[in-house]
């Protein structure tokens, strides 16, 4: 067995179903060996999207997403996708081909120091020097990617190592690394302190981040909040932990969040942050959330605790284990008045929009779409105004909401939606993007056609890079610079070129019928919605 075959065998051992990638000479031995394997390959149209697709698959399946690209430009192209996964802690293994071991360092054709280049965007990386190390390295890589704080792992494999004979292939049963033992169980003393503080609190609130989804702790989390009637707000990555219309849920916090959610967080006397980084988009002034309140910070990564704010009670561990333990604590807490106050805030502080009836109102449209979607459907938002409207107006029932929250990578939605669809073909998957972000990934329409991945796409078209235009409106007094998207393709013709169904919605009059038609069949459809170019989020 040669190295390339060993890599494929490792993927089979890990239960990998799909590899997203793009071949090149340096990864050809691998792509040659995978032909014999039940592992499917998806030919993505640019490497960055291989990582985004792997991310979408990982987030829906809970398994590690895998991508495989060639050396040099293949590897450097995938970096943005890896960095996007790193910022959102998505489990991923990225295999890169590399030039012949003996030539490394001599700047030959398509050589790039990829392990060096991605160092600050990966949880770990390997440069394989001996084919016999492949089984151990892959076992470790999958383990590292999907335990503790999840994240991408890169494995760089020189072409001669892919072609070298292994003495024997034995896939290790377990991993033994003296430097990697993440804490998953929460410290009991700290858990008891949390329970004691909660019993004292008059105005408690929980803010959930994406960590609760990554540790598959939604059920435990909801059960805990419901048991003690604790109100919940979320960061962008935490959307979907609670169903949007859950009586205890008060929306997303932050600059682009719901006013009532921010007010609730600021007025609380006890704040539990769980699986959230307390980064600037969610918490603009970290000092504010430590003033006059007890702050409990729960995270699996000890380095996140105290990085941006110093908590009263730090609690390191996996959210699922911690909420299982918290559910067993006897806590009596009473805060009916607080909940009533928050319900008032929710009603009185709801943002009021005055949409122009000549256009599609993104807010009304998104809510209508959510209500018509399958209740366990997957909604993938891109980056830009479309993302903020999606966060504000999409209603999660039993489904998932995916977006690039940490890195804010435009073009994420279409490839991520493809990965999500492949993870579970029974689910309805919709990618919502703007005309800017659509054009960053529109080459993937071919991938969808080639591999029959029926993702539905919505383009909110305003002929502007809307989020930047909005920023220039407020900060640069309408001095618009490089935000005009004139020259964009006719999406109807484009859909026809890819042999895809196309729909257009010009205002809200026919929204009902058009959305029904858009959702009717499990097929790829592109729906263009003409929105007001001057609309603000």
């Amino acid at each position, binding site marked *: 067995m040669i190295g390339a075959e060993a890599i494929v065998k490792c993927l089979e051992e890990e239960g990998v179903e799909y590899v997203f990638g793009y071949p090149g000479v340096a990864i050809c031995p691998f792509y040659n060996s995978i032909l014999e394997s039940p592992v499917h390959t998806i030919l993505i149209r640019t490497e960055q999207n291989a990582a985004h697709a792997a991310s979408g698959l990982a987030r829906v399946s809970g398994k590690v997403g895998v991508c495989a690209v060639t050396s040099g430009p293949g590897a450097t192209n995938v970096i943005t996708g890896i960095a996007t996964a790193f910022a959102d802690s998505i489990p991923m293994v990225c295999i890169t081909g590399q030039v012949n071991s003996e030539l490394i360092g001599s700047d030959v054709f398509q050589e790039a120091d990829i*392990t*060096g280049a991605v*160092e*600050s965007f990966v*949880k*770990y990386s390997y*440069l394989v020097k001996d084919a016999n190390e492949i089984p151990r390295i892959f076992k470790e890589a999958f383990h*590292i990617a999907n335990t503790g704080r999840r994240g991408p792992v890169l494995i760089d494999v020189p072409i001669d190592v892919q072609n070298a004979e292994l003495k024997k292939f034995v896939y290790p049963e377990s991993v033994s*690394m*003296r*430097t*990697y033992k993440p804490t998953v169980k929460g410290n009991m003393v700290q858990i008891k302190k949390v329970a004691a503080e909660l019993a004292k609190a008059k105005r408690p609130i929980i803010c959930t981040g994406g960590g609760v989804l990554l540790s598959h702790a939604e059920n435990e989390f909801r059960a805990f909040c419901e048991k003690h009637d604790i109100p919940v707000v979320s960061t962008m990555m935490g959307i979907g932990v609670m169903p949007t219309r859950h009586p205890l849920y008060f929306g997303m916090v932050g600059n682009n969040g719901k006013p009532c959610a921010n007010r609730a967080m600021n007025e609380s006397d006890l704040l539990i942050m769980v699986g959230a980084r307390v980064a600037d988009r969610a918490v603009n002034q970290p000092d504010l959330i430590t003033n006059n309140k007890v702050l409990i910070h729960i995270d699996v*990564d*000890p*380095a996140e605790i*105290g*990085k941006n704010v*110093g908590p009263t009670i730090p609690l390191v561990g996996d959210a699922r284990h911690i909420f299982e333990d918290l559910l067993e604590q006897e806590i009596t807490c009473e805060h009916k008045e607080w909940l009533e106050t928050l319900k008032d805030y929710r009603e009185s502080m709801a943002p009021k929009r005055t949409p122009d009836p000549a256009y599609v109102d993104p807010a009304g449209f998104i809510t209508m779409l959510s209500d018509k979607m399958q209740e366990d459907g997957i909604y993938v938002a891109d980056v830009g105004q479309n993302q903020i409207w999606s966060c504000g107006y999409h209603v999660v029932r039993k489904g998932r909401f995916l977006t690039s929250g940490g890195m804010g990578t435009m073009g994420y939605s279409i490839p991520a939606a493809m990965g999500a669809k492949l993870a579970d073909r029974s689910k309805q998957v919709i990618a919502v993007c703007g005309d800017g972000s659509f054009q960053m990934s529109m080459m993937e329409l071919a991938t969808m056609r080639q591999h029959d991945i029926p993702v539905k796409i919505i383009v909110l078209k305003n002929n502007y890079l809307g989020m930047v235009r909005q920023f220039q409106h407020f900060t640069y007094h309408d001095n618009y610079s490089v935000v005009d998207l004139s020259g964009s393709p006719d999406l109807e013709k484009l859909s026809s070129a890819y042999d895809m169904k196309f729909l257009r919605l010009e205002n809200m009059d026919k929204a009902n019928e058009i959305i029904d038609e858009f959702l009717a069949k499990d097929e790829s459809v592109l729906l263009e919605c003409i929105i007001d170019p001057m609309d603000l989020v």
Partner: protein
Amino acid sequence: MKRIYSVLVENRSGVLCKVAGLFSRRSFNIDSLAVGETDDSEVSCMTIVSSGDKRTIEQIEKQLNKKLDVIKVKTFDEASSISRELLLMKVKYNRNNRRDIMEICEIMNAEIVDMSKSMMLIQMCDIPERIQLFIGMFKSISIVEVARTGTLALQKCMETD
């Protein structure tokens, strides 16, 4: 606030780069860095002297612990550790200052380890502050070259060890 980190790492290629990269990536200071093998040839010890406020000091330790090539991080302040630095310094001398140089070396416990008709190579092992002081004494004499190892440090012996 000065802080010393004694970091045990896997003795593999690229690890120094990862640790140093972590400091630059997160804007942590490195005042000095010294690396060498330990009694176990698979393990290296990096001694890093850094400074920052309380939060930075804590973050440095946590971020170091997060690196998968880091086996153990020990951190201590100067008072609870023994630290040493080695200095090699080449100076130009003449008949007039030769005596002075030898006297300074004697007082400061430095050794002249090599010489030619016009040059001397001086070696000194001491705490970083005294090394600094010693170099300062030669500013007016004519230093040709200086090489320092950076601080090495271990925690003081305690009964609980």
